[in-house]
């Protein structure tokens, strides 16, 4: 095993920006009119999709834009969720404060863990993130006085908005989740388009060239790791208040596999990929669960077919449709 597999993820720039904007507005519009149906079920599904999309997008800053495959990303999601939940239970009922603080704790954890992880690349990086992710999982599992251990951390409230609006009703919490997610996605999008974003893509495509240009490659990888951890924690905070409980298994390696699956189903090469992927993931799950509890069996088969037959993901397929007039 000496041959080095080159990393050649390239976020797709082929779709014209006008078309992309229209697509984004359509998706956002669909989500915005969802509460019209006054169905808690639909609201809940919408939130699951939005939170998963944010989680997967934060993961894809690492994989798609920096070429680093993390196998412990759920740990930061979990840390964000636990931190936000604990703040809401013990300190304040101000939801914005709690989830931002939770995300900050997750970001700091990522900064600390990332300091070690970015010392390695490729499979060794993945194995390191696996090890640290499982370490965090064990801490959540064993630190019973803080997290409740396997008993789970229950009774996480949804809190209030600016001390005025009670966010407990699912319909109101839905708008909160939607706006926070949309803002976060916009910020991530701006990051990927910024000089910083171009630089990390340069590192992905040709590490040496960027290094010779005088850039501290490891430091930039650490920045990305921290940013990814922050947004993952933000998604975790939103999740904690939605479900009102946190389990240790939310941090474990099988949870870390979820954003990977979602991203690959949607397409690692485009910014929209993880968003499309989470819509597909959650909807497929909802459909199959109606027939069998072992929905993962069917999902595994779908995943194998997708990975062998349609690498590039659903969004790549859609983009091809949308941009058939452009040379590919």
């Amino acid at each position, binding site marked *: 095993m000496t041959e080095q597999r080159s990393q050649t993820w390239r976020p797709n720039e082929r779709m014209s920006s006008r078309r992309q904007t229209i697509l984004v507005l359509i998706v956002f519009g669909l989500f915005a009119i969802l509460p019209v149906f006054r169905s808690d079920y639909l609201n809940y599904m919408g939130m699951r999709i939005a939170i998963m999309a944010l989680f997967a997008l934060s993961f894809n800053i690492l994989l798609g834009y920096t070429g680093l495959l993390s196998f412990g990303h759920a740990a930061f999601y979990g840390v964000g969720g636990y931190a936000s939940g604990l703040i809401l239970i013990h300190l304040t009922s101000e939801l914005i404060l709690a989830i931002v603080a939770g995300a900050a704790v997750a970001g700091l954890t990522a900064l600390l863990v990332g300091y070690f992880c970015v010392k390695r690349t490729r499979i060794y990086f993945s194995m*390191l993130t696996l*090890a640290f992710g499982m370490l965090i999982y064990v801490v959540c599992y064993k630190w019973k006085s803080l997290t409740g251990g396997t008993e789970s951390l229950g009774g996480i409230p949804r809190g209030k908005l600016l001390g005025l609006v009670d966010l407990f009703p699912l319909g109101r919490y839905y708008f909160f989740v939607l706006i926070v997610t949309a803002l976060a996605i916009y910020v991530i999008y701006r990051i990927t388009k910024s000089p910083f974003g171009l630089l990390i893509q340069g590192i992905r495509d040709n590490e040496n060239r960027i290094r010779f240009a005088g850039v501290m490659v490891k430091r930039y990888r650490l920045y990305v790791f921290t940013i990814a951890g922050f947004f993952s924690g933000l998604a975790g905070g939103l999740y904690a208040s939605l479900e009102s409980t946190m389990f240790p298994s939310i941090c474990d390696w099988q949870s870390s596999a979820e954003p*990977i699956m979602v991203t*690959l189903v949607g397409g690692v090469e485009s910014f929209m990929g993880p968003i499309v992927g989470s819509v597909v993931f959650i909807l497929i799950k909802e459909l199959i669960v109606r027939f069998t509890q*072992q929905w993962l069996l069917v999902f595994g088969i779908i995943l194998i077919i997708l990975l062998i037959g349609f690498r590039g993901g659903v969004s790549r397929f859609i983009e091809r449709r949308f941009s058939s007039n452009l040379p590919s």
Partner: protein
Amino acid sequence: MDTYVYTLLVGLYYGMNVWLVASGLTLIFGMMGVLNFAHGSLYMMGAFLGYTFAKLCGDNFWLGLLIGPIAVGVIGATLEFFLIKRVYRLDIIYQLLITYALVLVLDNLFKIIYGSLYMSVGVPIQGGIRVLGRFVPIYYFFIIAVGILVALLLWILLNKTKLGRYLRAAAHNREMSSAVGINVPRLFTFIFGLGSAMAALGGAMTAPIQTISSGMGTAIIITSFIVAVIGGLGSLLGAFLGAIIIGLVNSFGILWLGEMSAPLPYAAMAVILLAKPSGLFGASEE
């Protein structure tokens, strides 16, 4: 003193259990460069199929222990031939994902077949030996012996036989081996089947002293990853010694630190990856 000896034996038995999974994992990674997430599921299948074949043969545990791993070996070779074979050329992320998808399929399939209940199998060798006044089940010694025997047989296969020479050649250079007439794809299928059978042997053998469930594979696969990383990815000797180390870290960790010992294996893995990513006995530097 007797407590230390007992803890040592428990560590060794657990280490040998992990070794049987980690050996196949390492063999497959060393030969084909695929990190196979589904290897834990093959271990789980070994436990269930060993149990079923034992029942079919009139409660004969030993026949189950023989037929179960062979059956899983055949299943593993079939999976390689129809599925895993397609991922060799792909990027490592797709390899991990496809083998992980396989975990989802196999684990849930067995959950449907056997139900989500926990099952237990009777211990086939009753009795124990007094070691320094401490009672140790004979079956622990049996597991340790089988683990060492598998290691020896594997060493002989790779180093002393013609097939072993072909295997080492194929691992070293696929194209050249093909050019001199070695049927590399068939060797890969064989190795995958062999690795699967070893994992299944581990599952079937330890079924009597633990509860078997469809989730038991996901628990051991991470420990096997730790072992493979500590020993050095792709190094069989490393996996053998790494398994013993992790076994002992586990048993002595519980003895001395109790609950606090849970993070130790992960911490050991992280430290090794940072200090020497090629592992304790691995050859290639990153």
